[in-house]
C-alpha cells in the first residue's frame, strides 16, 4: 500500500527527492522533442499559416486545467474520506498550478483568436466555461489564503472543491445551452477525428510534456508546502517556548 506509506511526510520527501530529477529530465526531453516537432516538423496550416502552432501550447494547457481540477477533486476526497495527511497539501499545491494553466489556455486562446476570428474574446461555450473554471481556481486560492489554520482551510477548500466538481458538468451544460440560444453561429473548431497525423503527433508529445511538467511542479510545490508547514510549526514552538521568559522577567517588577 504505497498510498498509505507516503502519509509520512518524511518518507514522501525522500520519495520526491529520488523521483524528481528523473521526472524533470523526462519532462525536459519531451519538451525538447515536442517543441522541435511543433515548430519545425509540423506543417503550416493552409489557412492559418504559422499561427496554428499556438495550438501546441493552447490545447495541452486546456487539457491540463481540467486534469488539475480532477487531481484536486481526488485529493479533496482524500482529505474528507480517508483523512490522508498529504491530501490537502496536494490539493493546495495543485490550485495555483491549475490556475496558471487555465490562464495560459485563456491567453493563448485569445492570441490565437485575434488573427483567426478577428477578436480576442468571444462568448463561446468553451471559453466561457474555462473562464468560470479560472474564477473557481482563484476563489479556492483565496479561501486558502484567508484561513490561518492549514488543516481547517484544507477541509473547507475540500468541501468547496467537491461542490465545484459536482457543479462543473452542470455549468458546462448550461453554458452550452446559453451559447446555442444566444449565438447560433458557432466559431470554427477542430473536430477530433479529422486531425491529420502530422499535427496529431506533436500535439500528443506536447500533451505528455505538459502533463509531466504538471507532476514536476506539483511535487515541487508539495515539497515546499510540507517544508513551509514545518517552518510554521517550528516557529510556533519557538514562540510558545519563548513566551514564559518575558512573563517571568516582568513579574519581579510588579
Amino acid at each position, binding site marked *: 500500500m504505497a498510498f498509505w506509506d507516503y502519509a509520512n511526510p518524511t518518507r514522501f520527501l525522500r520519495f520526491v527527492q529520488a523521483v524528481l530529477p528523473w521526472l524533470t529530465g523526462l519532462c525536459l526531453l519531451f519538451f525538447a522533442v515536442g517543441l522541435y516537432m511543433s515548430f519545425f516538423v509540423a506543417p503550416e496550416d493552409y489557412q492559418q499559416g504559422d499561427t496554428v502552432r499556438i495550438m501546441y501550447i493552447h490545447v495541452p494547457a486546456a487539457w491540463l486545467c481540467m486534469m488539475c481540477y480532477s487531481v484536486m477533486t481526488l485529493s479533496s476526497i482524500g482529505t474528507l474520506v480517508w483523512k490522508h495527511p498529504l491530501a490537502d497539501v496536494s490539493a493546495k499545491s495543485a490550485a495555483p498550478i491549475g490556475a496558471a494553466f487555465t490562464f495560459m489556455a485563456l491567453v493563448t486562446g485569445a492570441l490565437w483568436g485575434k488573427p483567426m476570428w478577428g477578436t480576442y474574446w468571444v462568448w463561446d461555450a468553451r471559453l466561457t466555461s474555462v473562464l468560470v473554471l479560472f474564477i473557481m481556481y482563484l476563489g479556492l486560492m483565496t479561501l486558502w489564503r*484567508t*484561513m490561518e489554520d492549514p488543516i481547517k482551510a484544507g*477541509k473547507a477548500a475540500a*468541501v468547496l472543491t*467537491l461542490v465545484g466538481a459536482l*457543479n462543473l458538468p452542470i455549468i458546462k451544460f448550461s453554458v452550452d*445551452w446559453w451559447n446555442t*440560444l444566444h449565438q447560433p453561429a458557432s466559431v470554427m473548431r477542430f473536430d477530433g477525428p479529422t486531425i491529420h497525423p502530422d499535427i496529431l503527433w506533436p500535439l500528443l508529445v506536447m500533451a505528455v510534456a505538459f502533463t509531466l511538467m504538471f507532476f514536476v511542479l506539483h511535487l515541487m510545490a508539495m515539497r515546499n508546502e510540507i517544508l513551509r508547514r514545518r517552518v510554521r510549526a517550528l516557529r510556533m514552538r519557538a514562540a510558545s517556548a519563548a513566551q514564559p521568559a518575558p512573563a517571568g522577567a516582568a513579574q519581579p517588577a510588579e
Partner: protein
Amino acid sequence: MTSWAMALFQRDLRLSVRVGGSALVGVLFFLAVVTVIPFGVGPDLNLLARIGPAILWIGALLATLLGLDRLFQADRDDGTLDLMLMAGRPLELVVLIKCLAHWTATGLPLVVAAPVLGIFLNLDPVSMAAVTATLLVGTPALTLIGAIGASLTVSLRRGGLLLAVLGVPLAIPVLIFGVSSADAAIRDPVPFLTPFLILCALSLIAAVIGPIASATALRFASD
C-alpha cells in the same frame, strides 16, 4: 420532528425580520441595482424591456449573495450554532430549515418586489409574470448555493466579499436558466417549460447539495 423544525423556522424568521430589517434592506438594494442600470445603459425603453429580465435576475442574485453573510455568522457569534451542532438533530435538516427561513425573510420579498420593479423596466404583463415565476422558483436555489459559501466563510471576520466570489460561479447555471426561461416566455425561441423545468431541477439539486455541503463545512469550522 415537526415541532422543533417549526420552532427553529419561526425563530430564524422572527430574528431576520426584526433584527436589522434584512427583508427591507434586501429589497432596497434590489431597487438600487435596478435604478443604476438605466444610468449605465441609457434610458432607452425598448432596450430596457429587452434586457429587463436579465437586470432583475442579476439584481436578485446580488441581493441574495450580499444578504447571506449573516446566515450562520450571528448564530456562531452568540454560540447558538454550537448548541445546534450538539443538539443531536441532523445538521443538514437544520441548515435546510435555516435556509428556508432566510429565503422567506429575504428572497420572497425580492420576488414580490420584482413585478413593481418590472414597471421601471418597461416589462409587459406576460414578461412580468414570467420573471416573477422564474424568480420564485430560482431564488431558493441561490440561497441554498450561497449557504455553502456562507458556511465556508463563517469563521472569517469579513467573509462577505469572499462568499460572493465563491458563490457566483456556482450560481451561473441558475442565472442562465432563470433568464432564458423568462426570455422564452417573451420571445419564445424555445418553449417556456423546457428551461423552466431545468430551473426547477437546479433548485432541487441545490436543495440536496447545499445543505449537505454546508453542514459538512459547519462541522469542520466548529471543532
